């Protein structure tokens, strides 16, 4: 990164408002370029009549050793009209000395940003500072189209990009930058490009100049012009040897786009698109291979081949050519292995599309089980390897309808994480596989998996069983921690037994036993049944107002009546009641122990339940009131706000009491919710 300091020559093209003349150079800087020079430059880079402005065109001027310039022109609309009432477009041309841009490998976007803001003074050349671009930003944009376009430019023929009309002009400029970054920097002395060129701008597309190349977005590919469709891969015909070769090399090396671009950018020696220039470009690109590590060097994947092979696999499946299918699968497998499981951005997306479209992961009838497994294993590696992510798993399972055993097994055999493995093992309905899967994971992993949305009822049941099996002796602490982390899986268990509170209570009871053993210590009880922060003064106030016996009232009137309405089985309820009121079991009341507040609240806050959300809403007026008081230290703004507030609250002395009452009920509700976990006692 750094800053380049440039001396830029410029010209302004347009018409005098109201004039009936043609476009011409209205002003230009003194120096090596006269208005006539600029008219020639204009003619050379004429991109037709624009459909949308602004439009940025880049090119080159000069050719001698001491006389190399990059050209950037910006065409914008103006509010003026000419003699026949037509809007006047205004174009600014900038000539930048090539040697001044090479050190910092300036991008066209960076040049544009700096030049666009320039206001020329009389006929002075501009002194402009330009920040060097962030190569990683450019590297992040490398995609199929850019690789295709960069390679096609090596045909020494114009290239157009179609289907990109909807892109904003800046995106198009960035794309041009990305394409150029995939060529040695020195080629910019012979490259021209535009964010838009009319498809009927004959001169641009049929330019006679050799050893230079042209790239532009346009609407329709003119005849004889290579076209790259936006969002798609364009394979360079192998008959265009250099370009084809360049494309393959680029595809290989795109695993490390940032390093690649830096390497190419360092090649600032001017290069043309002559056969010699192209050979030098290829050499430069190949050199990047040589200095890379062994793994990268081994890659020679041909992604177009891969795509073709996938398609052919599908053809063979349909036509039952099992032998050929197996052969293809071997080739595919080898290719993926050779690649070391590396893919560049977007590559697998394309494969996945083919896989889905051609139903390669479906359970094909009449196909030999082994072959089917091989098919699925290879296809998964190509489309989703090397490691199967949970997202991909979901996508695959959604896509194939009812997944066959072969597919599930193949997926299960892929490297993956706990969620994927447990889900698949569970789906597979194979005790041994499930056992193996469980054995690989800790209790914490299991709880995490159970808590994952969307909830998988069967898996949750299996996990609860497994956790109960492991019990508190082995991993009780882990289980407790993980359960706390996920709010005791309340939501998941609700999904498991949506209708029955009784069953939910039972499952929770099993979990608590697994985590804490048969009986809860008071501290554990408090850990589970916490109160949210913020309600303490209210609770204290309510208890004080009640006076002696508040604890009993709380239990009797609030907790018991709440649980009584919950729909518990009468037996369970009686148990709850006796456990609640039995003095022998009573520990210190949760509200008496300040630590219990803190411990309990921290966890309960994390997954926000419905009650908590309600609470939050209700607390809002309160917290706003508080922030008023806090912010009133800050001066006049608050004074004004305070005045307004005073007006607003005048004559509403009852309001705080109502709020307090609501908050009180809410706090108690929350408290009661915690108690639900104890119901099965």
């Amino acid at each position, binding site marked *: 990164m750094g800053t380049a300091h440039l001396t830029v020559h410029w010209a302004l093209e347009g018409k005098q408002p109201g004039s009936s003349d043609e*476009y011409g150079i209205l002003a230009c800087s003194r120096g090596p370029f006269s208005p006539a020079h600029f008219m020639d430059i204009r003619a050379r880079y004429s*991109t037709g*009549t624009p459909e949308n402005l602004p439009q940025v065109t880049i090119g080159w001027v000069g050719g001698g050793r001491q006389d190399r310039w990059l050209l950037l022109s910006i065409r914008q609309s103006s509010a003026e009209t000419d003699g026949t009432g037509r*809007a006047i477009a205004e174009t600014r041309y900038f000539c930048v000395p090539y040697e001044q841009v090479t050190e910092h490998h300036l991008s066209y976007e960076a040049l544009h940003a700096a030049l666009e803001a320039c206001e020329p003074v009389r006929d002075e050349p501009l002194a402009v500072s330009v920040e060097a671009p962030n190569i990683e930003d450019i590297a992040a944009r490398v995609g199929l189209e850019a690789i295709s376009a960069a390679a096609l430019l090596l045909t020494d023929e114009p290239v157009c990009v179609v289907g990109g009309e909807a892109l904003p002009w800046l995106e198009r400029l960035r794309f041009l930058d990305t394409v150029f970054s995939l060529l040695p920097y020195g080629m910019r002395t012979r490259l021209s490009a535009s964010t838009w060129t009319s498809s*009927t*701008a004959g*001169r641009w597309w049929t330019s006679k100049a050799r050893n230079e190349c042209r790239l532009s977005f346009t609407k329709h590919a003119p005849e004889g012009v290579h076209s790259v469709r936006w969002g798609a891969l364009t394979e360079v015909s192998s008959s265009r040897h250099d370009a084809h070769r360049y494309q393959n090399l680029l595809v290989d090396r795109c695993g490390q786009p940032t390093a690649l671009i830096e390497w190419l950018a360092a090649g600032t020696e001017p290069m043309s698109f002559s056969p010699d220039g192209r050979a030098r470009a290829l050499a430069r690109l190949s050199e990047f291979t040589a200095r890379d590590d062994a793994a990268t060097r081994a890659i020679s994947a041909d992604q177009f081949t891969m795509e073709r092979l996938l398609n052919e696999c599908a053809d063979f499946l349909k036509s039952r050519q099992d032998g050929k299918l197996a052969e293809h699968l071997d080739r595919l497998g080898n290719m993926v292995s050779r690649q070391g499981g590396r893919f560049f951005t977007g590559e697998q997306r394309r494969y996945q599309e083919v896989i889905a479209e051609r139903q390669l992961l479906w359970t094909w009838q009449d196909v030999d089980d082994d072959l089917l497994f091989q098919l699925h294993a290879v296809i998964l590696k190509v489309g989703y390897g090397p490691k199967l992510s949970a997202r991909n798993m979901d996508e695959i399972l959604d896509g194939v309808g009812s997944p066959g055993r072969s597919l599930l097994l193949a997926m299960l055999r892929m490297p993956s994480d706990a969620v994927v493995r447990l889900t698949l093992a569970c789906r597979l309905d194979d005790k041994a596989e499930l056992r193996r899967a469980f054995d690989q994971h800790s209790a914490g992993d299991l709880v995490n998996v159970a808590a994952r949305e969307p909830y998988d009822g069967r898996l949750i049941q299996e996990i609860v069983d497994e956790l109960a099996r492991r019990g508190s002796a082995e991993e009780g602490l882990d289980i407790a921690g993980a359960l706390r982390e996920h709010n005791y899986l309340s939501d998941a268990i609700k999904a498991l037994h949506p209708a029955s509170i009784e069953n939910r209570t039972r499952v929770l009871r099993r979990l608590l036993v697994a985590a804490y053993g048969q009986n809860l210590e008071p501290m554990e009880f408090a850990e589970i049944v916490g109160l949210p922060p913020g309600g303490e003064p209210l609770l204290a106030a309510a208890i004080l107002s009640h006076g002696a016996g508040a604890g009993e009232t709380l239990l009797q009137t609030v907790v018991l009546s709440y649980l009584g309405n919950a729909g518990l089985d009468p037996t369970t309820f009686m148990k709850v009641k006796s456990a609640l009121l039995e003095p022998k079991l009573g520990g210190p009341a949760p509200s008496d122990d300040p630590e219990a507040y803190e411990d309990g609240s921290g966890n309960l806050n994390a997954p926000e339940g419905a009650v908590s959300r309600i609470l939050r809403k209700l607390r809002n007026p309160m917290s706003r009131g508080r922030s008023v008081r806090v912010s009133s230290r800050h001066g006049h703004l608050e004074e004004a706000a305070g005045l307004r507030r005073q007006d607003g609250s005048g004559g509403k002395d009852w309001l705080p009491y109502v709020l307090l009452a609501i908050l009180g009920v809410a706090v108690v509700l929350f408290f009661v919710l915690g108690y639900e976990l104890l119901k099965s006692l």
Partner: protein
Amino acid sequence: MHPDPGSARPSHNIAMWGAPGSGKTTLLASLSIALMRRRGPWKIIGADDPSAEFLEEKSLTLSRGEFPQATLDMESYRWVLVGEPKAPERRRGRLFGGPPKAAPAPRVGISLLDPPGGLYGDRGSVSATDQKELLDNLVQSRGIVFLFDPIREFDNGDAFDYLYRALVQLAKQILAGDDHGDGKLPHSLAVCITKFDDRRVLQTAERDGLLTVDPDDPHGFPRVEPEDAARLFHRLCEVSRSGNADLVVNALDQYFREDRIRFFVTSSIGFYLDPERNVFDARDFQNMVPNVTGNQQGLKAGASKFRIRGRVHPINVMEPMVWLGEQFYNSQPNNGTI
């Protein structure tokens, strides 16, 4: 409208020729509409996607009431003029006098160059590259559509500038080599007097009694008979501001064979028709209205200060192209596809 590749490779170049703002692009834009409005034996189709798209899009633009934006840089289009594959006797002796049988649909390929008008002028700022390319194109072309903009002639009087310079260069290049015994250029020249819908043009024609109405025309549009078009041209040259527009006439006579010049009184947008009455009204026929100027954000790129008021009824827009096509066709030894 998809091209039929290979069957009609455009091989005849037509160059548009006219001062800036004379309406070259608007004329081209109205071609499609002219086709739809008028029944005739000829169609124009794009020979490639961009050219086909141009016809469609620009006619949509005009139908929306917008004028095409000023041509900034040279554009080229490739079209095919396709005749009617009808019973041969109807055509016999009329357009193409050729052998009646077989009668394939006649096709004429047209490559049309639409340069910014300024390239024809004598402006120091015009690039040599541009002018050379234009001249090369003129040399190669067989037909020229010269747009004479009487309004510009009234106001600026410089139509001559835009014609003469290029004409002399062209003559030098072609006649110097000389297979042209008669000392005339081999081109066919369609002189289009544009902006017939403008008050001043229509009134000039009216004053000179050149207006007629085709009794079969349901709209009753005034028109200038083909044989009177040249008279109107002379007349308009006389009222020119510079006074040397008569030189235009002389120059044309001097460089082109008489049977290869034809005059057309054209209007790309035509006259305004009240949608209810649907008949030409001499009291109210202007079809071009100023756009609202209240837009403080500035005009959209290419937006014009004017818009089209009603529907577009192109006048004599197809005809110059068809005439040139016929010229090409007739000059071809075997009037097949050319």
